[in-house]
């Protein structure tokens, strides 16, 4: 019985001392949002659509991100300008369904869709978590600075004729007899 009382008192005194001593210890808590945490560049946060080095939309509406998405939260529709360049007529991500898995980025053949270190996406209304192309499209190239899909692909677009893509010969003259 005596031992029990002794142990209990000791424990309480030690606890009080420990709490008291923490008054002089440096705090572990980060003062978020006054203090912002360091986010790694490859963190999988808010999704953006980027532009190529020429400032044109990178997305060609190929639908690969949408089909890769395990929660089916990307919907888009392809359209085309007069010169043959593909782009999305609309591009919608339902972030209330998104699980930030990054499969879309992995599937993207043009580096258009990218995940960013931004994780601050809470909304009061769920409807506000539906983002359209206007909300997603940024002005820069994002993480990948140099890639320009159309400079590699053989499709003719405004400002790039047949034969002007990477490693392309000038178009064949079908009527020529030369080898």
């Amino acid at each position, binding site marked *: 019985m005596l031992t029990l009382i002794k142990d209990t008192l000791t424990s309480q005194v030690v606890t009080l001392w420990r709490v008291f001593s923490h008054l002089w210890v440096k705090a572990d808590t980060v003062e978020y949002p006054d203090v912002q945490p360091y986010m790694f560049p490859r963190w999988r946060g808010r999704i953006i659509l980027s532009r190529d080095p020429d400032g044109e939309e990178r997305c060609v509406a190929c639908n690969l991100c949408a089909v890769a998405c395990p929660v089916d939260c990307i919907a888009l529709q392809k359209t085309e300008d007069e010169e043959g360049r593909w782009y999305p007529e609309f591009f919608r991500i339902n972030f209330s369904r998104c699980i930030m898995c990054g499969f879309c980025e992995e599937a993207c*053949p043009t580096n258009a869709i990218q995940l960013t270190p931004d994780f601050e996406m809470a909304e009061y209304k769920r409807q506000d978590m539906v983002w359209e192309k206007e909300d997603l499209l940024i002005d820069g190239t994002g993480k990948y600075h140099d890639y320009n899909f159309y400079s590699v692909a053989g499709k003719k677009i405004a400002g790039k004729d047949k034969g002007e893509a990477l*490693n392309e010969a000038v178009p064949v003259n079908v009527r020529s007899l030369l080898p």
Partner: protein
Amino acid sequence: MAKIVIDGVEHEVNPDNNLLQECLSLGLDLPYFCWHPSMGSVGACRQCAVMQYRDADDKVGMLVMACMTPATDGAIISIEDKGAKSFRSDVIESLMISHPHDCPVCEEGGECHLQDMTLMSGHNYRRYDKKKRTHRNQYLGPLINHEMNRCITCYRCVRYYGDYAGGTDLSAQASHHHVYFGRHEEGVLESEFSGNLVEVCPTGVFTDKAFSENYSRKWDLQTAPSVCVGCSVGCNTAPGERYGSLRRTVNRYNSEVNGYFLCDRGRFGFDFVNNRDRLLEPVQRVDNTGELLADDQVKALIKEFTTDGTIGIGSPRASNESNFALRAMVGEENFYAGYSDVEHESMIVILDLASDTAFHSPSVREIERADAVLILGEDVTNVAPRIALALRQSVRNQAKDLADQSRIPQWQDAAVRELAQHERSPLSIISPAVSRLDDVACDRVIEALPVVVAMGHQIANKISTSAPNASSSTEHDEVIEKIAEQLKAAKRPLIIAGNSNGSEVIKAAANIARALHDGSDKSVIDLCLLVPEVNSMGMGLMAGAANPLGAGLEKLQSGEAKRVIVLENDLYRRAAKATVDAALTAAAKVLVLDQLPTATTGNADVILPATAFSEHEATYINYEGRAQLSFQVHQSQKQAQPSWRWLCDAEHIDDLVERCSNELSGFARLREVLPAENPFIAGMKVPRQSHRYSGRTAMNANVDVHEPKQMEDKESVMSFSMEGIPSQKDASVLASSWAPKWNSNQSISKFQDEVNGELKQGHVGCLLIERKDSSGSYFEAAPDSTEPSANQLRLVFSYQIFGSDELSARAKPIQARMTDAYIGLSPADAKARDLRQGDVATISPLGSLVVVCIRTGIKAGTALLHCGDGNISPADFSGLIEVEKSATQTTSRGIGNLIVSDFHEKEINS
């Protein structure tokens, strides 16, 4: 049967086929490009290499091309052999050296045979660092896109377009790695079957232009097995929907009907479903303005129409169920035929012949087997295009016979063609104008319609003297004799006619077939009688012989009937304007059910919106009497409903099909087209969406972030979802084929019991009409009584693949190829009237305006009238017409889009 060993496993195969075809029949994966199931082998691409061993002791083996090697008994081959595999991988690497790295912006991506084969052959990374050859593209018209950089020179396009479909304006040009597939100059691809290039090309050189404008990947399309409603052939299609609009139609394999190919009307004509003018709400006319009707108002109205004094007018473009619901509602005696009286008369003859034991109505596949064909008075290419493509194959039977004699296997395509040169099975055409099949015809007679009929009777008489003879003219005796001999000598002769221009031609054709039946030991003769619309046969079987449209309109006009229900039909296309006007004005109440506004809906008191073919489940009966089931692809917009749902209380389409089977004579077997009741595990349904269907939780999120419940389908064995038993398990509900490793349409071989065979558990439809009447006799040759006066011309109706069908004429891609209404004249007749190519003329009796089209291939004295898209009604004309130059000289479309070989003058004012 031969036994061969593939990778150590013994298989039984057909020795008449090549190794590639047999490997695919066995379900093995062997890559290929240039081989196509319906076009045989040429050994151009070297992709299907396998290792063949001399005997069990041979461990080295030799590389052979599977498509060029017969499956001989005792052959030992290996697909998995290291050497064969690395050869195939090298071949595809070299095919890919100039491929343009544009899959993301290629319409073929995701259903590309080249993508599939590249993966299957194991080529991953590009090693070739030299320059890629590039090509300029061509404009090939409003239907097909051209992107030559993607070409891998398999030659399938020119083999299909030229050799198979008879097109002359697509060819291989230049040489070595500069080879180019295109036209001699930019322009519209002339063939009526050019759309198939999209499916034949293993990669994205030829893509569907109309689809590209509303593009969606294959995996995102909601698809169901459907039937084309463009004409009476009833080709099987797989339309695809995305975000509420119908995006495209592709071929759906049916071994008996369309096989692997569609015509351009079928492929591009679906777009009327998306037409902005669609009728979508029930409307009542009150003081010349429309007033929306509530549900109970509609019910009250329908009740009003169930009282006495109501007649119903059926429709050859509506389903059996809708026609039946109307017939049941108004009573058999008040149900009138929905086509013109002239057509009614010829339909009676056709239906009569359809139950005659002497004849057989051949399927498209059977038409391909005919070894002597006579076309009497019909322009098959424009009335039933898919049959014209089959006829082009039938003339090759001579070549196949020659190959058999020389012991060349029939799949050796190039060798068989080389051997046969221009040897063709006889195809004879007797008609008032040249047709698009003339290039494969051995005999071609252009004569006025009465002479065509008389010649038909003369041929019958030549074959069997018991047939009545017609005319004493001896002008064509030689050719008549020749055709009669050819038909008699043939193993499987075929006579084709149609009801485009009255019943006399059909009677003459039937006489020829009967003469062949009497004069030979053949038990049945193939007699193919073409009707114009998707369900002409179905409605014809329901409408009594005593109930032609004219009688119904008469009843309205006389006041005997007060109310009329018009089912999906524009009466102004079926009867003279004055008659229809009088009848509709006299009627107290006119109720019209339709999909699009027409002249008839313009005069309706009540309009109820009907669903289009892709928005409901339905059965249709094709020209041969084959009933086929078409599933609903997507939900209807707003308040449109299947017509039968407006008209009767039936809950379920199955109930109506059951009632049709029980209550209608000749429909007993209709119930067989329904899928077996719940063949699927645990009540699960077949999904219309693929397992890769994307965007479910985002597509409606702009409207409401909370996803709606998946729409239920209470009608059919299919569901509007991704979940359920994949159709891969049961080909009877197979819309778009897919198999592991096979994303393109070539995956169809995984569902056939053998290559080109029937689909496993598939449904080819069922032939409804039982042939049990053996008492048929010859028709009398009725002499022609109409004698044109000096300035009159004999009228013949001309149909166009683009524009003659009422619904597809409302599709944008079809409109881009349509012409105005025109009158075709011979140069002599045009000169006599001082008319030049492209002028505008008026034609009697209404003074309708038409464009003049002068063609050298029209019989003088005959005028060919094409009615365009409904601004002129065929019902307003008959027999003889007068043509005069008009003061107006402006037209909207002109005739610039017309593709015929016999324009008199090259320049057309349009």
